[in-house]
């Protein structure tokens, strides 16, 4: 197969003979279409309705899940600008694909999955904006307790962090986390357990880690 396609590229492409249908049948089809509804009206209506609907859906989901997406992206990237860019890219994906959701749970999971993939891509390609505005804010507020926990979570490997975030922040169960991250449930369970063990070691304080999952 590969050799064949290679030959096609290197050699002169062979023309393909396409027989057009007789002109009369094409004309008939066009007349039927025009008679069914004035074409200009059809185009104007569908364009306006589609556009308005698109805008309304985008605004609705941005309002509904924007902060969830932003927080999830931040949990990966630890930088406000990066997280905001991921949120924007996620909304662009939605705008472009216009996926149809079964319900709100499905919609939220879709947005979080896209945000996770975009964040991981960003980590791989351009991962190194080091300003952690959230850490700075916590320090400014003199919330040592929160700073301590945040620094501990930040120190975890990405694979633990993503599960920890979805579990503690979004309240997802391990099967739900597995579906969002495209991982096996056992993997998520193990990442959660290891992540929490690591946090316990670092924090050395009484936190309810909700070990039963």
């Amino acid at each position, binding site marked *: 197969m590969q050799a064949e*396609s290679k030959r*096609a*590229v290197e050699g002169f*492409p*062979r*023309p*393909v*003979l*396409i027989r*057009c249908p007789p*002109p009369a049948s*094409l*004309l008939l089809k*066009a007349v039927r279409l025009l008679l069914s509804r004035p074409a*200009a009206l059809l*185009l*104007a209506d569908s*364009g*306006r309705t589609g556009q308005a609907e698109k*805008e309304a859906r*985008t*605004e609705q989901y*941005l*309002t509904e899940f*924007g*902060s969830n997406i*932003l*927080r999830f992206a*931040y949990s990966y990237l630890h930088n*406000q600008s990066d997280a905001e860019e991921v*949120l*924007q890219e996620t*909304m*662009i994906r939605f*705008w472009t694909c216009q996926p149809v959701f079964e319900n709100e749970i499905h919609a939220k999971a879709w947005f979080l999955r896209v945000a996770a993939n975009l964040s991981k891509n960003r980590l*791989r*390609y*351009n*991962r*190194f*904006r*080091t*300003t952690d505005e*959230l850490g700075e*804010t*916590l320090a400014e507020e003199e919330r040592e*307790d*929160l700073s301590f*926990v*945040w620094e501990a*979570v930040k*120190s975890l*490997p990405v694979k633990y962090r993503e599960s*920890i975030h979805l579990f*503690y*922040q979004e*309240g997802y169960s391990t099967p739900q986390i597995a579906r969002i991250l495209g991982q096996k449930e056992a993997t998520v369970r193990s990442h959660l357990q290891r992540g*929490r063990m690591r946090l316990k070691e670092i924090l050395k304080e009484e*936190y*309810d880690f909700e070990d039963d999952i």
Partner: protein
Amino acid sequence: MRTTYREIMDHLSVTEDLRLRILGELRPKRAPSLFGLSIPRVVSAAACLLLLTAAAVGVMHTRLIAPPSTVSSAVGNPVSPTVNTASAEELAALVGFAVTEPEIPFAAEKTEYTAFGKDLAQIEWFGEDESACFRKARGSLDPSGDFSTYESVTEITANGVCVMLKGDSSGYLLAVWEGSDFSYSLRLSHARSEQEWLSLLENCDIS
């Protein structure tokens, strides 16, 4: 833990300003309109009518159409394709230049090889709690993708090559250097001292 984590995350939210910015970025993506009709739709309709007219006068009965070329135009696709490979050899074959794996200061559990187009090769190592990223790119520009401003910047010479180290009070995280026709970067998740970087780079084929 859940309450504490949520209290931390409550500091982040989509502000009205950010919401408007995002929606503003999306709105110009709409196609421009002509008398209430979308221009692409008008163009499509016009093209259809033109084709029908041509068909009606019987100009075309049959025609030869060449299949679309399998070679994509670089102009139409400005984003470099990202391809993962299984080894440094495959990576080198894909980018068209040699990629020698440098030594890293921890045991890697997983290694990923990625080609970004034909100009940038990347190897990433992931350990239990450490990671490293090596990049080699055509040209002399810093390929690290790291635009942070570092507190500490110094230059060292390893294997006769001048290497710039960047980091903070805890040590250096990033090394950037140039060879003939190529530039390189190596970034570690955990900072290392100048001496540790020196011995790390001296064991590598860095030119």
